[in-house]
């Protein structure tokens, strides 16, 4: 009995370990992971690394081009762009994380319920989500932010809700592919209730597509957040946000293009890192794509 237990745990362990081994082999994925780690560290330790506070204005040093004191230059009121990008990373990563948590919780449970129960429940949930899917995501987010007003939490909610349908669809499809298998029948026969079957037996078996989707959705959420801030609906000044920095710098592109260069590069690097990581994870976690 004892040896059987260890056997099973080793097997369980090696599933993730072999996925990690496969992930390590992919140079692109490791580059993405490293880049993302650097961005996260920069955001977490912003107050240690950043040479200036994000709202420190120095009116004697406005519009400075990149130099030794200000690596990325300064903006129209003399704030250090490098420091603002580091602090902006905090905002973007937080928005990405929380909005994906919202969509994975809401969309995931709806999709799981729809897939598991099928029939009328499935129809009701999925037809309702079809309505949300019929509205281009950014427009749905704009509508929600208009109703709630700008601000960080409202932005997270808007972006999270607008990607609920895509999560629900993926989780539903995955549940459908595993729910007819024997271990579900075994769990039911041993007296497990539906909630237990869904969360303890089905969900662990569909973690792979969910993890991939989380990574890729986070990239999308960060992009949406900066887009909404760019059109003035997201984070309000003086809190630094990459999209808002682009929007504020737009007026000066004729002479001081560095103001809009670096925030854009930061957005791009973050999205690129998450996309590379997500692609790598998909290849590593999906056994059908082995070989």
């Amino acid at each position: 009995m004892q040896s059987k237990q260890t056997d099973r745990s080793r097997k369980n362990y090696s599933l993730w370990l072999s996925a990690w081994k496969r992930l390590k082999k992919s140079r692109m994925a490791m580059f993405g992971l490293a880049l993302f780690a650097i961005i996260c560290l920069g955001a977490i330790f912003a107050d240690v690394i950043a040479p200036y506070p994000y709202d420190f204005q120095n009116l004697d040093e406005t519009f400075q081009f990149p130099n030794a004191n200000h690596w990325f230059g300064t903006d129209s009121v003399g704030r250090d762009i490098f420091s603002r990008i580091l602090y902006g990373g905090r905002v973007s990563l937080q928005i990405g994380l929380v909005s994906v948590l919202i969509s994975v919780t809401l969309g995931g449970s709806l999709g799981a319920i729809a897939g598991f129960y099928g029939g009328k429940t499935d129809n009701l949930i999925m037809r309702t989500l079809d309505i949300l899917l019929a509205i281009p995501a950014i427009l749905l987010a704009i509508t929600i932010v208009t109703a709630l007003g700008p601000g960080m939490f409202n932005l997270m909610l808007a972006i999270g809700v607008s990607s609920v349908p895509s999560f629900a669809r993926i989780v539903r499809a995955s549940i459908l592919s595993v729910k007819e298998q024997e271990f579900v029948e075994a769990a039911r026969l041993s007296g497990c209730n539906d909630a237990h079957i869904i969360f303890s037996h089905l969900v662990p078996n569909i973690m792979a597509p969910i993890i991939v989707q989380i990574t890729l959705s986070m990239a999308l959420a960060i992009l949406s957040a900066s887009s909404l801030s760019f059109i003035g609906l997201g984070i309000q000044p003086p809190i630094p946000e990459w999209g808002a920095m682009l929007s504020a710098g737009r007026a000066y592109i004729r002479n001081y293009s560095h103001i809009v260069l670096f925030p854009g590069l930061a957005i791009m690097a973050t999205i690129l890192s998450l996309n590379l990581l997500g692609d790598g994870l998909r290849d590593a976690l999906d056994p059908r794509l082995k070989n």
Partner: protein
Amino acid sequence: MFRYISRRIIMMIPVLLGVVFVIFTILYFSPGDPARTILGVTATEQEVQMLSEELGLNDPYGVQLFRYLKDLLRGDMGRSYKNNKSVSAEILQRFPTTLLLATLSILFAAVIAIVAGIISAIKQYSVFDNIVTGFSLLGISIPNFWLGLMLIILVSLHWRLLPASGFYGPRYWILPLITNGVGYMAGIMRITRSSMLEVIRQDYIRTARAKGQREIVVILKHALRNAIIPIITLIGLQFGRALGGAVLIETVFAIPGLGKYLVDSISAKDIPVIQGGVLFLAFLFGVVNLCVDILYGFFDPRISSQYRRKKEKAVKMHAKQAN
């Protein structure tokens, strides 16, 4: 085919009604007093009350929703709070620009991306394939509004080659097209490549080659036709993104389309305009989805034959009974 199309159209109706319901409800609960917005801070409480009554803003939610739906069916989307102009007239005047930009961007992106994707799949792991894969990775990650700003800085301000804003003729289209197109191109290239790679390993491709068919026919007729469904699906989704993304691209290039109209009214909390604009763009997206569904039936005979077979069956049954 006709049955298939009409079924799709009928299925669209409840979705569109649902969209109206969702958007109306979200915006109904937005804070702020529209009558106060229209009249400004100088108006007396009594004037505000009178206008609210006149606009029917004091009616219960259900009454207002029903009235909005009724007006919508007649093509009336209410009047702007800001300048009292008819929202539907303003939208009709602006949407051709947005639709033109979205369609051109998608066409531009799709043509290049499908050709590049096919070549890159045939010559897998070649230099060209690596360039295409690299480009699509970067293209997916570039925020298009930032790419637009960079292009304006480089092409319009530094090189002075193309105008930076407006939308008055083909010269003005180039930068927005590239800005919009790069992201879509990247996505379509990826899916074309992977979809073609899947198909060209199939037995029927070997058969086509074995019977001596010319390579170009094998690729375009036998392979592409079988690989095209996911590509069309993605192009349809991209179209939706292009319609929504108009709010960004039109802001960057100061294009007088529906997106710019929407963005300008957001800061003023001009609810009828936001509502009308979002609904109209969602409606356009619905039409695009319908076209995609029709294309499915066109490209994949299995889909349209599902509907044909039913009819044939009915005819056969009828013939049997007649005998």
